[in-house]
């Protein structure tokens, strides 16, 4: 049984130490932190299927505190979910209040020791990434200890042992597995220093991570220690940057891969070229059986992830493409590629005009991986499940996104941006809606910024999405009036009118009369220094909210939302 008062005692101890240190007015003692809350009051709204929790009012709140004194640092985070906002977090349920995170860190010459909770990443995260995306509800913080050592300039070593955070019930709950790992990285330019005369750099790194989980399964012999290793290489010149990382995981039968004993592999390749006014990037990924969670029976794909597999697709900022059809990595099997170009036509040139024009083009595509399921007869002893050809795509295209954005300042007061996207989206695989047909959508967005005066301006967006599948056509209009430096007022309406006709082909088959719904929402905000207050009121449609590589479903809601953030 966890001691309920352990967390508050720690926080109180930190606060007492901080007060003590400050009153002695010693140079170098710092106490800083932040506070953030999102609170919502829910109205019923059966037209949109709005979710209304029985408490009617929900609030997420966090307060972080960090005390630093010379080579010593300690911190804690208090969290409160009474109850959490609907649909939050992405994985296992949170409830109650308490200390969710606490640590102490000491630096002794080139060795840094952290005890308690910590976040860490090896390479790009293919075998290990512990991180938080607070507004999504992703937090797989480690609880244990971590060492970082720099034995020589340019050589970086890391090691850790710990358990991962699973959920929060008046305090963090931990997953059953124990995770440990080491990482080494050598940056040649830094190591050789004055002996290295070129402006290039070569960085080589390797990591090894393994997890331990007891096997009490009555039907299978499960491996209790499962390890994954990765090697990476990064070559940089002033114009080029080439990166590659390969990871291999031994047998890891888990709930997401049907308890098969096949090995897992991941490969990331990326090359970028950039010079003044021009940038280009090309990348390719292949993942096969790379779910790596510290509980093999983890309930959702968001819990206890040891690694992080980023989707190779552009993260859109406009509402319709970002929250309706975003791509999510398929860790069990995916081959994907992306290419991007950024160019600025300088002012004074023909295409540049008076102020310059910026163009960005992006193409990304993802396929399943070429697999052959092993028949029961071939697979009785090893239980490998399937054979796959690594880096060979299957016939099934999961996702394709072609988009182009042109941004141009027309005069001192006017700026416009026009974006076009063409999206192919296998909603069956990506959002787990079996039987639904692939979505083909065209999206156009016009964004404009007009400055009335030096301090007051209006930004507007008009977005249109047309498709004959899923929810049909959408139109969005948004206007945001800003009064620098403190105020803003915004209004947005999203209209799902489905089709230009009287009927709508739902699921590509059935004709139904379109149910045309508006989702209006208004916001007001006030910002001063490190504080920000925002109030929204209106209808929020269901959607997918992505930050980085993780997406979570947000249910439809109607009501008042208040957000307050402060950094001190």
């Amino acid at each position, binding site marked *: 049984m966890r001691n309920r008062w352990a967390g508050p005692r720690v926080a109180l101890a930190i606060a007492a130490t901080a007060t003590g240190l400050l009153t002695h007015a010693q140079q170098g003692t710092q106490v800083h932190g932040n506070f953030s809350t999102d609170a919502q009051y829910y109205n019923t709204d059966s037209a949109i299927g709005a979710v209304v929790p029985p408490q009617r009012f929900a609030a997420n709140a966090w307060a972080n505190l960090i005390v630093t004194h010379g080579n010593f640092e300690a911190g804690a985070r208090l969290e409160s979910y009474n109850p959490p906002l609907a649909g939050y977090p992405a994985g296992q349920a949170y409830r109650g209040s308490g200390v969710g995170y606490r640590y102490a860190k000491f630096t002794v010459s080139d060795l840094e020791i952290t005890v308690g909770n910590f976040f860490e990443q090896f390479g790009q995260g293919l075998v290990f990434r512990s991180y938080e995306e607070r507004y999504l509800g992703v937090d797989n913080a480690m609880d244990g200890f971590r060492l970082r050592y720099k034995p020589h300039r340019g050589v970086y070593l890391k090691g850790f042992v710990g358990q991962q955070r699973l959920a929060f019930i008046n305090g963090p709950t931990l997953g059953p597995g124990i995770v440990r790992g080491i990482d080494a990285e050598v940056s040649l330019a830094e190591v050789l220093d004055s002996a290295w005369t070129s402006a290039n750099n070569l960085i080589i790194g390797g990591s090894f991570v393994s997890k331990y989980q007891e096997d009490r399964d009555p039907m299978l012999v499960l491996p209790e220690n499962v390890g994954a290793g990765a090697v990476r290489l990064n070559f940089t010149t002033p114009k080029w940057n080439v990166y590659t990382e390969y990871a291999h995981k031994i047998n890891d039968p888990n709930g997401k891969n049907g308890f098969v004993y096949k090995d897992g592999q991941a490969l990331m390749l990326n090359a970028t070229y950039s010079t003044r006014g021009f940038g280009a990037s090309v990348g390719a990924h292949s993942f096969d059986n790379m779910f790596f969670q510290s509980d093999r029976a983890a309930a959702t794909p968001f819990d206890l992830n040891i690694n992080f597999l980023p989707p190779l697709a552009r993260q859109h900022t406009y509402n319709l493409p970002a929250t309706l059809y975003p791509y999510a990595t398929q860790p069990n099997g995916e081959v994907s590629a992306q290419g991007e170009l950024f160019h600025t036509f300088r002012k004074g040139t023909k295409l540049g005009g008076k102020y310059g024009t910026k163009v960005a083009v992006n193409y990304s595509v993802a396929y399943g991986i070429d697999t052959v399921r092993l028949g029961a007869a071939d697979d009785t002893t090893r239980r490998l499940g399937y054979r796959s050809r690594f880096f060979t795509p299957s016939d099934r295209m999961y996702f394709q996104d072609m988009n182009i954005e042109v941004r141009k300042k027309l005069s001192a007061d006017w700026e416009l941006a026009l974006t076009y996207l063409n999206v192919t989206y296998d909603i069956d695989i990506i959002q787990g809606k079996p039987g639904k047909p692939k979505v083909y959508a065209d999206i156009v967005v016009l964004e404009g910024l007009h400055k009335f005066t030096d301090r*007051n301006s209006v930004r507007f967006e008009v977005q249109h999405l047309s498709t004959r599948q899923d929810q049909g056509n959408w139109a969005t209009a948004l206007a945001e009036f800003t009064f620098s430096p403190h105020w803003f007022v915004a209004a947005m309406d999203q209209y799902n009118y489905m089709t230009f006709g009287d009927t709508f082909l739902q699921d590509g088959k059935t004709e139904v009369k379109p149910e045309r719904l508006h989702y209006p929402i208004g916001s007001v905000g006030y910002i001063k220094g490190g504080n920000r207050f925002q109030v929204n009121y209106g209808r929020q449609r269901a959607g997918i909210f992505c930050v980085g590589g993780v997406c979570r479903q947000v249910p439809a809601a109607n009501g008042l939302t208040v957000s307050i953030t402060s950094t001190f």
Partner: protein
Amino acid sequence: MKTLFSMLFGALLTLGASAQGRVPSVIVQSLDGRKVDTKTFAENNGKPVIINFWATWCAPCKRELAAIADKYADWQAKTGVKLIAVSIDDARSMARVAPYVNGQDWDYEVYLDPNGDLKRALNVNNIPHTFLLNGKGEIVYQHNNYEPGDENELYQKVLQAAGAK
């Protein structure tokens, strides 16, 4: 539990308000893969430094950096200020930071904070978030959010920091 929470919070707000912050020592990456200690950010020959947190997926962040880019040369000539843009793009979009920055023709010093270590150490909640350090490396001003025209307020603070050296 709740009273403890509010007591602590209240006590620490007052405490925190009295201390001048400094940039903590955190390891971030430069665009060529070298690791850099953020302690060195404050070193600008006694001139002010702006630390701006952004990401390639944050539209207001990009607007802010683009708006400042138009005036940056001017600001540098008058005050010697340096802008350090710390990108919190993670593994998903880290690769596009360099081509984007160059494609935009920006002159800032850009660093990568892919796992949010510096963001957490400076208690940043969401981006864009800007810190201004004076010539002595103390944080004298911070601002969250961006609206067109905010760069003017920032410049006023830079002038103050440069003047009150």
